[in-house]
């Protein structure tokens, strides 16, 4: 089975959801016209990233009666979409979230579980922490979604792997930082290195959509990537420019790679569980 994947590496308007929505609909159509089955947008693609006190005012709920999700769900009849937004739950907590939409339905919502609150980041001040990492079934098999800092930690991708995800959809609004003599920023090198590493060690497909543009002095570097289960680069977006990155994902590669390298088959989950229980439960064996 093959998936034609599109990564919509867009710029966004900070706090202007309607304008961002229009761009999503336009790009979903363009991706479909170029043959894509699934289009993935970056983190907070409907709102912009450094929201601060805007967070509660741009929040929506992924449901058919929401004015933003209604047209997105309509668009999902032609092409599956992954969009980034601020989710307000019934108790009025605000999450950095991503929704997988397909055939007019909300298939899955992921809440960011790691909110960076250090250095230039202040997410924990404005958002609630997600508390689930779950893979989910789609018409293309079982997938997983993580948002930016989620995959700077090793445990969320590992959990998705054990939960059956063979294609990881990673979404970022990654501020560029770390200028040296290298042709790429340090943050770009770091993310690309770990994305390739995850593809290799999980023998899975890893697609990363990162936004572009500026918010005040922060730059977002783009450079979206798709790595295959061998860790080979299948597609890459431009740096610092909007791009619609197309990639053909041949899911049969999972068969070939895992026949050669059965890391998933040999993963000793019971041992992991036992050792984590010991480590977290104290040192008595």
């Amino acid at each position, binding site marked *: 089975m093959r998936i034609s994947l599109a990564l919509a590496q867009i710029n966004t*308007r900070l706090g202007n959801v309607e304008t961002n929505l229009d761009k999503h609909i336009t790009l979903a159509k363009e991706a479909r016209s170029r043959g894509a089955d699934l289009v993935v947008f970056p983190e907070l693609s409907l709102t912009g990233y450094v929201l*601060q006190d805007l967070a509660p005012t741009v929040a929506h709920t992924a449901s058919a009666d929401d004015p933003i999700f209604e047209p997105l769900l309509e668009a999902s009849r032609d092409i599956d979409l992954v969009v980034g937004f601020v989710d307000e739950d019934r108790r009025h907590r605000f999450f950095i979230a991503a929704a997988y939409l397909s055939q007019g339905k909300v298939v899955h919502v992921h809440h960011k579980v790691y909110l960076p609150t250090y250095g230039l980041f202040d997410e924990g001040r404005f958002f609630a922490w997600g508390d689930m990492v779950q893979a989910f079934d789609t018409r293309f098999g079982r997938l997983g979604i993580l948002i930016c800092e989620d995959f700077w930690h090793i445990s969320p991708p590992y959990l998705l792997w054990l939960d059956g995800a063979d294609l990881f959809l990673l979404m970022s609004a990654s501020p560029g930082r770390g200028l040296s003599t*290298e042709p790429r920023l340090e943050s770009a090198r770091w993310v690309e290195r770990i994305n390739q590493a995850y593809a290799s060690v999980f023998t899975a497909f890893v697609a990363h959509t990162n936004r572009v543009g500026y918010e*005040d002095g922060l*730059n977002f570097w783009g450079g979206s990537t798709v790595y295959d289960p061998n860790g080979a680069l299948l597609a890459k977006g431009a740096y610092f420019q909007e791009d619609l990155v197309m990639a053909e994902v041949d899911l049969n590669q999972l068969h070939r790679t895992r026949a050669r390298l059965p890391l998933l088959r040999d993963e000793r989950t019971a041992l992991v569980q036992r050792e984590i229980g010991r480590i977290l439960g104290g040192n008595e064996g």
Partner: protein
Amino acid sequence: MIDLSINSELARTILTGFIRSEITRAGFSRAVVALSGGLDSTVSCWLTAEALGPQNVLAVRMPYKTSSPDSLEHAQLVIDTLGVQAITIPITEMADPLIERFPETGPVRRGNIMARLRMIILYDQSEAFRGLVVGTGNKTEILLGYTTLFGDSACALNPLGDLYKTQVRQLARDLGVPTPIIEKPPSADLWKDQTDEGELGFTYAEVDQLLYLLVDQRYNPSDCVAAGFAEGFVRKVVERIQRNHFKRILPPIAKLSNRTVGYDFLYLRDWGT
């Protein structure tokens, strides 16, 4: 040792994109830059011309009677090379009445008066030209506070503020800035034969390396001494950074209400754009 070299092409891409983005999203297409003919203002003007097109940039020269003739010439060289628009507004006849009114005015007061007069002219030209003021301050001078508050530090956006002086010099070289501008001793040119390094008491080459350890690499002062910097030099620079922090932040507002600008009324300037 400590290598502050940068990839100039990458810096150029990010900085020209930043200038273009921050000016156009504010509803403008033009910029004004105070062009002294020194390194920082030249690089700032260069990047702005590249970002917006030279016809959309107004270089403003504001000489005082003691300004070095080289400064004007170097600024002319930049104007001619880039093809930006230009205007020259001498400040002598504006500055002197105020300076003469207080005969005891020393070089610091005179320098501040000149820097703030230039700010007034620059912001007036900003309105006349319908262009935002692009700043010229680099990371070294921001950290050391080697700048006049509400004077040369005033701007709408600052493309160079995260580059140390030695990095600005490398960027200038890679952009193709004429050699005399790159090689002359950095100077605020507020009085004759003034140089930055003479006034500061150390060289940019030295202090940039120390600042890089202190700020970027989060070294303790004692770690810097262990890394080979003289203790007195480290102490002097650390004190300078702390003492001048007021120049880097907005004036504190006394909190009374439940929601106060600066504390819990938090939005980026790019809000809505």
